[in-house]
């Protein structure tokens, strides 16, 4: 097996045709190693979400290839993409996207219910959900509904849900975008822990402070990667001050 978690070549995404065509991504070449923690930055409309959607197998590129864990997934069928999302990818959304009428545990169980290999019994699903919730520090909020939780707690439930199937990659599109800075910091620390445990993390953020938690920062502009540097370079810090 390759050490590369994500490899894209000549990745292009065009919305619409003719005059109205929007080039959201232009020949993006990106390599992310297993276990890396990457922050994606860039102005609004630069194509960050588009890139995340393709990496997350929610969308297919217009052209170019995308190899995920050694498998070319750029042209898989809808069903196979669903399976890849279920097994290999954990999503964290800006707006949490928890199902409001379900308890935290039930929300976390969702990806397990759609799992097609290594089918777990209902009891095992539940136990797994509890364990994952405990690992994000919500062992005492298992039966709470999202409306009974703070924003930071909700996002932690969402992270627990992303972790439920032990995916190799966590994709987070502005995970702290809706949170105050203290809760945002908690979330970033949680992601940092996951990173230490060996999970590949790709995160979109507008916040330089959040980006500091990443090992590597990629800047997008107008659908192109304009910079790709390791964190710790002073330049990033200076920009934030």
């Amino acid at each position, binding site marked *: 097996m390759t050490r590369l978690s994500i490899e894209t070549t000549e990745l292009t995404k065009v919305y619409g045709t003719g005059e109205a065509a929007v080039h959201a991504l232009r020949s993006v070449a990106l390599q992310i190693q297993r276990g890396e923690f990457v922050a994606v930055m860039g102005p609004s409309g630069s194509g960050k979400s588009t890139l995340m*959607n393709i990496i*997350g197998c929610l969308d297919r590129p217009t052209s170019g290839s995308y190899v995920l864990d050694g498998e070319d997934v750029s042209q898989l069928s809808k*069903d196979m993409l*669903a399976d890849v*999302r279920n097994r290999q990818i954990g999503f964290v959304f800006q707006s949490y996207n928890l199902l409001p009428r379900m308890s935290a545990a039930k929300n976390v169980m*969702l990806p397990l*219910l*759609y799992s097609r290999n290594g089918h777990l019994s209902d009891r095992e699903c539940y136990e797994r959900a509890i364990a994952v919730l405990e690992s994000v520090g919500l062992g005492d909020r298992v039966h709470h509904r999202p409306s009974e939780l703070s924003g930071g707690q909700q996002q932690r439930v969402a992270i627990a849900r992303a972790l439920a199937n032990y995916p190799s990659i966590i994709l987070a599109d502005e995970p702290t975008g809706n949170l105050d800075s203290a809760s945002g910091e908690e979330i970033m620390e949680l992601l940092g822990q996951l990173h230490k445990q060996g999970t590949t993390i790709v995160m979109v953020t507008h916040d330089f402070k959040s980006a500091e938690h990443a090992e590597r920062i990629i800047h997008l502009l107008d659908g192109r990667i304009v910079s790709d540097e390791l964190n710790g370079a002073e330049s990033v810090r200076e920009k934030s001050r």
Partner: protein
Amino acid sequence: MSFGRTLKVAWEGLTLNKVRSVLTMLGVIIGVAAVIVMLAVSSGAEAEIADQINALGPNLVMVMPSFSRGGLGGGQGGPPGLSYDDIEAIAHDVTGINGVAAEQTTIQTVSGGGTTLESISIVGTTAGLPEVREYAVAEGRFLSEEDNARTNRVAVLGYSVAQELFADQSPVGQKIKIGSTQFTVIGVMKEKGVVGTTDYDGRVYIPITVLFKKYTSSRLGGDKVRLAYVSAESKDTMDSVMSQLTTLLSQRHDVDPAAPDFNLMTQDSIIDTAASTTETFRDLLAWVAAVSLLVGGIGIMNIMLVSVTERTREIGLRQALGARPRDVQLQFLLEAVTLSLAGGLVGVLLGVGGSRLFNAVGSMRTELVPASIPLAFVAAAAVGIFFGYYPATKAAQLDPIEALRRE
């Protein structure tokens, strides 16, 4: 996702909005209940008719003038019908019969024993009536052939008429007046009650020949019987009785036996004719019920479409977490089918309960058609699948990114 889990998810989806789910089911509930009640009502009506016809007596052949030939006032020898002589001839010449009864009714005032009764059915009949109708005399005797032949002014009273006129006294030998004519009471019938629409006990029986002479006008065909009952000894002699009747009456009326001026009917043939009428009625009701099921189905489709729109984000999320299009489709299809089947179940309960209730309060006779219950379920499931398919497919085809972005 496994079928069982998808079913659970569908169930949870429905319980989120219970009031709406129940209202959506209402269409199917009403449709299914209507199917069951209507089938029960029409089969009850059929059974009622069969009972009334069978209550006329056992193994009857009914002889009626044929209106297609001659019609009223036309044909050979005046209006169609049977004369008293025809009845006599049947009684003497046809073998394998218990008796012949002709009946002609008029309404008159009856007085006797110091009491006057208005609007009493006076039945002119023949000696065969007790055998044909299984209706026995309690006291005295019934009308004889001689009474008819001699036009004796004698009367036999129904049970309640006797009670009302003479109370505890014996009516036999007493005089009564029917209209302006005096009669001698020769007998009282046993209590029989109401059969079908006929109140046997409230009638007075006199010789049919007397009735023709005193109460009906011969110019209007008043000396002809419109209906005579011939009681065969058993089911086995019915065919022979019918062919003897055809021969005898054709001869007497001087008509071709292949195109007679009378019709012979058995109870079975009348029941069959009645059944074909109720079948038409039932088909009509079935269509009404089917339309209401259809409307119920459209209601389900409508609500499922609303639900898919409302839950677009949930659908997008489920897709992001690994739901395949078919998982989403099955989830919504199962919601629709669960709605329609639950509606079907409640509808069956209501339909069965309603049919029982109609019977119990005596307003209508109903008989549950057992096949209508599985039929209702199959119809409900079919409605759910048919009307759930489009919304479910629409949900399955949603693009996950767009769905997630939707507010």
